[in-house]
């Protein structure tokens, strides 16, 4: 039952992202990239220097934000260091 130490805990991985870039994919059509400042048990997060991408049929609408508190309720996927721009 005890967690295998060779296993990677999700909360640990997010914790290691604090201070670096993170890509947040919401349940809907929004994605955000920003520097993770902190998060709580609900994975509400404080992000800085955020770029918000709204993916629509016509293309991507981009919004820049200095600092935000993002409610964790609508987060689907977190990608450490990633960004939606193709490499």
């Amino acid at each position, binding site marked *: *039952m005890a*967690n*295998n130490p060779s*296993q*990677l*805990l*999700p*909360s*640990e*991985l*997010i914790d290691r992202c604090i201070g670096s870039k993170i890509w947040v*994919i*919401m*349940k*809907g*059509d929004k994605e955000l990239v920003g520097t993770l400042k902190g998060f709580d048990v609900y*994975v509400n997060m404080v992000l800085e220097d955020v770029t918000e991408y709204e993916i629509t*049929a016509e293309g991507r609408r981009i919004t820049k934000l200095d600092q935000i508190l993002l409610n*964790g*309720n609508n*987060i*689907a*996927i*977190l*990608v*450490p260091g*990633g960004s939606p721009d*193709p490499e």
Partner: protein
Amino acid sequence: MSGRKETVLDLAKFVDKGVQVKLTGGRQVTGTLKGYDQLLNLVLDEAVEFIRDADDPLKTTDQTRRLGLIVCRGTAVMLVSPTDGTDEIANPFLQPEGA
């Protein structure tokens, strides 16, 4: 160990194996399960997301994008299944035209 509630879904046997994950909102990803917690938060490596249909977000297309190492939020997870031994079949409930 007594008094400790065991989870219905034991993900331990899926660790380091390929899994398919469906999320609320219609997103679908596959990847190698690297970790999980009791709230069904998942760590997937080499994750690939299937792009949703622009007209119907509950349908996925053949288009994919590589995400790499990701965390899937347990609150958004609807389905977890191993990719090994999973095959997609034609819909047996679709009535043929004119039937």
